[in-house]
C-alpha cells in the first residue's frame, strides 16, 4: 500500500509533460506529495521518484536542498517568522519569543501538543516595509505585535476558523499528516 493516494500519483505522472524536460517536474511533484501528507516521508519520496522514473536519492537530494520542503511533521498551521536584519531591527526576536510561549513550542522541529502549530525562523521574506512580518501558512502578516500573534492563534484554535484564501500549487506546508486529520474529522 503506497503512502500517496492513487489520484495524487496519477497527477504526479502527468507533470513531466508540462515542462520542456521532464526533470523539472520533481519539485511540483514533491509539492503534491507534501500537500497530501503534510511532510515528505522516505516512502513518499521513493514513490515520487518511481512515478517520475528518477533515482530516489536524487529526489531526496532536491527535497533536502530547499527550505519549503519539510522532512518531518509540521503543525496544521506553520508560522514562518522573518528574523533577518530588517525585521530584527524592528523587534522580530521579541515576536518569536512571544510566539514560542504562546504555542508552547520552542523547537522548529516540534509541533504543539494539539497538532495545530509549529514555527520556524526564516530569512528575509521580501516584505521589509511591513517589518516585523511573517508568513502564516499561505499568507503574509504585517506590522506584528504580540497581540496580533495572540489573535491569529486564537482564531485558529476556535472550532470554525476563518477559511484562508484559496491558494495554489504551493508547498503544502499547511496540512498536518493525513491520518491525524482523518481521525479528527471523523
Amino acid at each position, binding site marked *: 500500500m503506497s503512502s500517496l493516494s492513487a489520484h495524487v500519483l496519477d497527477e504526479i505522472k502527468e507533470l513531466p509533460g508540462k*515542462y*520542456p*524536460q521532464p*526533470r*523539472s*517536474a*520533481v*519539485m*511540483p511533484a514533491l*509539492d503534491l506529495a507534501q500537500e497530501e501528507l503534510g511532510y515528505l516521508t522516505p516512502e513518499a519520496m521513493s514513490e515520487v521518484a518511481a512515478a517520475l522514473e528518477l533515482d530516489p536519492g536524487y529526489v531526496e*537530494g*532536491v527535497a533536502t*536542498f*530547499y*527550505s*519549503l*520542503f519539510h522532512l518531518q511533521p509540521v503543525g496544521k498551521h506553520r508560522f*514562518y517568522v522573518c*528574523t*533577518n*536584519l*530588517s525585521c*530584527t*531591527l*524592528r523587534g522580530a*526576536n521579541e515576536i518569536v519569543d512571544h510566539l514560542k510561549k504562546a504555542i508552547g513550542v520552542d523547537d522548529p522541529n516540534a509541533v504543539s501538543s494539539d497538532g495545530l502549530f509549529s514555527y520556524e525562523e*526564516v*530569512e*528575509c*521574506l*521580501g*516584505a*521589509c*516595509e*511591513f*517589518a516585523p512580518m511573517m*508568513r502564516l501558512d*499561505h*499568507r*503574509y502578516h*504585517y506590522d506584528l505585535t504580540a497581540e496580533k500573534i495572540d489573535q491569529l492563534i486564537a482564531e485558529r484554535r476556535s472550532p470554525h476558523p476563518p477559511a484562508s*484564501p484559496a*491558494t*495554489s*500549487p*504551493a*508547498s503544502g506546508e499547511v496540512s498536518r499528516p493525513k491520518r491525524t486529520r482523518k481521525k479528527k474529522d471523523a
Partner: protein
Amino acid sequence: MPELRGSHGDAPNHVLTRWFGTPDLHHLEVYESKTKGYSALRKAMLEMAPAEITGEVKTSGLRGRGGAGFATGTKWSFINRDAPGPKYVVVNADESEPGTSKDRYILENSPHLVVEGILIAAYAVGANQAWVYLRGEYDEPHRMLVEAIGEARAKGHIGPKPMGKDYPLDIRIYRGHGAYICGEETALLESLEGKRAQPRSRPPFPAVKGAWGRPTLLNNVETLATVPWIINNGGAAYAKFGTDKSPGTRLMSVSGNVRTPGVYEVELGQTFRHVIMELAGGPPEGRSLKVFWPGGSSAPVLPASMLDTKTDMESLAAVKSMGGSGGVIVMDDQHCIVRAAHRLLKFYAYESCGKCTPCRVGGDWAVRTYERILANEGSQVELDTLQRVSDGLQNGRCLCGLGDSAGWVIDSTIRHFREEYEDHALRHECNVGAVAVNA
C-alpha cells in the same frame, strides 16, 4: 488590493509607479483603459522590428535591476534571434536579497506591467515561451500573476496570435522552494530544471546555453517592468532620467529604523540623504542614523557620514559599495554593528549551496568567530581570523558572488566600525544603546 507603502501616483520621476494605487490596476481592463496598458506590446509587435526594440532598450541605457546592473539592451542582443529551435525568457522573480521587496511591490500592484514587459522581451529576442521563476513564499504575487496571465490569455495577448500577429507567446510560472541562491541566474536555471540550485561555471553563458540547454534571456522583474515605458516613450526619453552611466529610476525598498519604511521610486543620482531622511522619514524620534546598507545586505555598508553618497552605481562604486538590489537597510545608533554583522553572516552561511568549498566552510568559520567575540571570548586573534576568513571568501574563489557578499559584510563593517569591533573583541564590552540585535 494590498496596502501600498511606497511610491505611487503622478510625480515627475514616477516611471514605474505612476499608476500604482489606481483601484483594480491589477485587472487587465483597468490596466488597458486607465494606463494605456499593452500599447507598448502592440507598438513593439506591429510597428517595430525586433532589432529596433532591442535598440530602443539599448538607447535607454537601462541596466539590470536585480543586482549586477548589466546593460539590459546588450544582454538582449546576446541572444541569436535567428538560431533554430526554442529560446526562452526566464524572469528572475526569486527576490530574496535581505532588505529587498521591490519586485513584490511591482507584482502585487501591477502584474500586467510585468506581463507586458515579458512579452515584449520574448518577441524581441525570438522566444515563444517565458518562465517566471517566482519565489515560493510569494503567495499574493503568485495569485496576482496567475490572474493577470489568465486575463492576458483570454484577451489574446498571450496565445497563438498576440496583437493579430502570427507569433505565439506563452508565459508559465515555476515556483521556487526556499533558497536564496536561486537569485543567482545559473542556480536559478538549475532549479528550474528540477535540480539542486547550485551555480554553473561560465562559459557557456545562459544566452548561449541557458534553460534546458537552450539560449535564454534572464531578466529581473523590475527590469522587465520598465520596458513598456521605454517602448512607449522611447529610449532617449528614459535616458534623460538619472545619470549618464546609470540612467533612469529604480525602486528602493527602505527598511529598518526609519519612520516610514516603503518602496520608493528614486531617480538615480539622488542622494541617500534624500532617500532615507526625506522619503523614509529618517530614524525614529530621539535616535540618529548609524549605518545603512545601500543595496541589500550584500552591498558593503556606509556610515551615517556618507549619507550624501549618490544612488547611481558609479557613485557607490567610488565608495567601495554597490547599488545591488536597491534594498536600503537603515540601522540607528541603538544597535550594535557586530551583532548585525553576525546575523548577516548566519544568513550567508545558511544559504551557501555547498558547491564551492571556500563559501561552504568560510561562512561557518565567520559565524563561529563572531560567536566567540560576542561571548566575550575574543582577542586580537579573532579579529585577525575574521579578516582572513573574509579574504578567503572573496576574490573569485567561488562560482558565484554569495561568498564575496559574506566577505563584504565583514570587511565593510570592520572598515567603518573598527572601534566597535575592538570594544567587543579586545575589551569585551558593547558601548551601544540598550537595544541590541539579538542574532
